[in-house]
């Protein structure tokens, strides 16, 4: 493709936030969480595929994955899902132009779009944190 910009920074080009602030790091974390969820999802398709061999095979598979290590891994996936989902809602709202305010003249004191959408970012992070705490309580304190 012609006229496209080269990513000279490689992986750091999309991992690092540089001077672009919190939203840029949230974006990098969104991608990392997405990659983790995708890796889990592919394994999940094969694990749940054991249902096809009947209930006994399912019970054996679940017994194999009931160790503390896998439980911890499952909880990490839940955390990644909670973050990716709530931050994803924020990204869709911003993508569609909601909650970023109206454009205006660059008059002092400057009010740029990143600042205008900061309350949405904070609200999304608080909701994600609440979901993570509820999930943690369920995983480690309520589950028998």
């Amino acid at each position, binding site marked *: *493709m012609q006229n*496209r910009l*080269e*990513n*000279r920074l*490689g*992986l750091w*080009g*999309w991992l690092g936030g540089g001077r672009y602030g919190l939203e840029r790091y949230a974006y990098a974390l969104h*991608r990392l969480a*997405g*990659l983790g*969820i*995708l890796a889990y*999802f*592919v394994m999940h*398709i094969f694990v*749940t*595929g054991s*249902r*096809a061999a*009947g*209930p006994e095979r*399912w*019970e054996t598979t*679940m017994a194999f994955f009931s160790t503390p290590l896998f439980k911890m891994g*499952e909880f990490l996936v*839940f955390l990644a*899902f909670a973050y990716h*989902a709530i931050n*994803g*809602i924020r990204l*869709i709202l911003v*993508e569609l132009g909601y909650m970023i305010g109206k454009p205006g003249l660059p008059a002092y004191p400057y009010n740029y779009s990143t600042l205008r959408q900061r309350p949405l970012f904070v609200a999304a992070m608080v909701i994600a944190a609440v979901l993570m705490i*509820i*999930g943690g*309580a*369920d*995983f480690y304190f*309520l*589950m*028998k």
Partner: protein
Amino acid sequence: MRESKLWSWHILTAVIILVLLGVHMTTMHLGALLSTAGIGSGDPTQSAEVFHRSQQFIYMIGYILLLGAALFHGLYGLRSMLFELSLSRVSEKVIGGLCAVAGIALFIYGSYVAILVFRMKGV
């Protein structure tokens, strides 16, 4: 398919996933909280509960829809990330093709399992 159309599908599948995976996550990972509220047994991975859910038409359709939406959303996301590394046109074609083949193969396998378990009798 044009990139803008693929991107629109990426957002549309995100909304589908949000609803279906939200229900799935609540059922599977907040089971203890739900049982406290009198819904479910508290262990949604018990084979009786798993097969009971899988043999309901609405769940089978939901699983297949979620499978397709999640595979497209995830693999398109992965493809986009890799494309940002300034790869050659040939590499992009190969990655795009691999993502498409992997997505179709996983969708066929997952759908086959969902339909097979739905049709199981006496389980």
